[in-house]
């Protein structure tokens, strides 16, 4: 489903080149629930944005659902993002002046579905997350947990092949966080492929597999804890 091989991401200025990811390799099979963990600044979110085609990478290979995404133009990347990836963000990232229904509608609009198709998918997604009764509410009228459920409904509406979750419970209290994790586990049981970035070890253990990232490189905790490649460095 998601295969990165020796992938690197460097940020360059006139005098310095800094690697956020270096020789980063990961392979997520279809139907897996993988937790990507690591300390702040380790490159977890950079990995997620590259995986979600929100950012280009500098070197290496990345295949999404069997397609090499290197060098794709903006239009094709946007289409892949829309059709194959569902995003769940820590800050929910709902659009405040759209109600729940219209927020879930956003990716479906770009997909080109007609009104009836969109309505059916939106209702099904909201039902799935238990918010069908709140479809006319605005984000500000919902609790944090409910907002995250809307975000999950939005991610599910397009029936993507891959769910990318960035600290999905980071802004929630423990009770709400538990509810969201239960929902993710339920989705996984139903066959969804989920990659979840988190720095919370308690959440990570609920995933099928944990990939630890330190200084832009992967440490496979399920195998032997070893460093893959060399340490990242700033090059003058």
């Amino acid at each position, binding site marked *: 489903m998601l295969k990165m091989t020796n992938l690197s991401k460097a940020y360059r200025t006139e005098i310095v080149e800094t690697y956020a990811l270096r020789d980063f390799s990961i392979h997520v099979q279809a139907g897996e629930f993988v937790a990507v963990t690591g300390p702040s600044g380790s490159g977890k979110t950079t990995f997620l944005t590259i995986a979600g085609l929100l950012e280009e990478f500098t070197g290496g290979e990345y295949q999404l659902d069997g397609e090499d995404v290197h060098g794709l133009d903006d239009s094709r990347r946007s289409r892949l993002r829309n059709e194959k990836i569902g995003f769940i963000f820590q800050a929910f*990232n709902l659009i405040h002046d759209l109600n729940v229904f219209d927020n879930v509608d956003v990716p479906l609009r770009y997909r080109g579905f007609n009104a009836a198709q969109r309505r059916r998918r939106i209702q099904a997604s909201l039902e799935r997350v238990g918010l069908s009764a709140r479809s006319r509410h605005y984000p500000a009228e919902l609790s944090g947990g409910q907002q995250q459920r809307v975000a999950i409904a939005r991610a599910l509406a397009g029936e993507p092949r891959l769910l990318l979750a960035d600290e999905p419970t980071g802004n929630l209290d423990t009770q709400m966080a538990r509810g969201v994790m239960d929902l993710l586990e339920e989705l996984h049981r139903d066959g969804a492929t989920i990659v979840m970035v988190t720095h919370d070890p308690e959440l990570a253990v609920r995933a099928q597999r944990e990939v630890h990232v330190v200084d832009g490189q992967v440490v496979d905790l399920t195998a032997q804890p070893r460093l893959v490649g060399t340490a990242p460095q700033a090059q003058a």
Partner: protein
Amino acid sequence: MIGYYFVLAIRSLKRNVVLTVLMVVAIGVGIGASMTTLTVFRAMSGDPLPGKSAQLFVPQIDNWGPKKRGSGARARAFKLPNQLTYTDAIGLMNARAARHQSAMYASGLPLIPANPALQPFVAHIRAASADFFPMFAVPFAYGAAWSAADDSAHAAVAVLSHELNDKLFAGANSVGRTVNLDGLEYRVVGVLEHWEPIPKFYDLTDEKFGQGAGVYVPFTRAIEAHMNPWGSVNCRDDTESGWEGRLRSECIWIQFWVELPTPADAARYRGFLHSYASEQLRSGRFDWHAETALRDLPQWLQFNDVVSDEVRILVLVSFSFLFVCLLNAMGLMLAKIMGRSREIGIRRALGANRGAIFMQCLIESAVIGLLGAALGLLLTHLGLLGLRALLSESIAALTHLDVLDIGIVILVAVASAILAGMYPTWRAAQVQPAWQLKGQ
């Protein structure tokens, strides 16, 4: 998707009403100022006879010669006389070198209405040849123009304007009835529909804009009746007194138009004018070879400075003001659109490509333009009302908005808003979703 973007635009504009109002006001005020002047400019510079103006020509003859032309700067500023002498008008008429031709001049006589309820008044008269009407495609409500035979017979016949017929005969068909001009009865042969070409191209010597005559009579009849010209009369030197003296003089007071349907006809007529000038030299009337010219209607309007430089400068200044307003609107739009970077980032993450974001913002700009157009139309209307109060009656008549003007206002406003929104929109499309989402 266009409908979706339109709904999003309305939502976005409602989100920040103050900013929206500022943008709409910036565009509306700029549009109002520029369209007010442009409306007047368009009316002044419009083609009064679309489709026919290229076939209508004014012959000019330099009957004043080198003495009047002077030398140096004066000679450089010299313009050929803009009217003809009676001698030349008759000379050209008798030659009949054009398909249609008419000598003409403005005059006026007391008119005594048959209806005793109406007071006598001075009627504006245009003395012209029968060809005046077909040549200028003048529309008739009743009857028709008088005939060439009437011209030859110096007949006391008349064509009334729509407005005068309304006044004298309550708009009824007055053909066959008579009007009393200075004690003489003129038989009405035709009544025009409303006809007021803008500008009043056929006689630019007095008012360039304004109403035409109320009564049209044969040129030959007017000469015979010694109807004095009301327009400009310019003479080379002292002239004999009396009517006959004026007819023999080198004073210019007669407008002359010819219809030449093809370029070949125009070329032939130029040759004829040249020969006519040579003939005047040979006959001893001139002791110089008179320069001649043949200008078509658009060239004639230009020659007579129908649209003054002041008006052109005013249009330029008002469009510069629109440009400044657009710069302001652009700044406001940039602030508004960049304030929505987060939303743009979310939309990009959910599958919107740059084109979709560009289109969304562009339609928002267009909606602002439409609102600006509505305000601009209102301000243009008020501006034209203001001009009506300030300008002369003849110019004031131009200051109205027609359907085309309204279309232009809307088009210019929307185009302006899109232009102003182009850079902010481009910037919005460049928003990197990863940066926005990482920044949460």
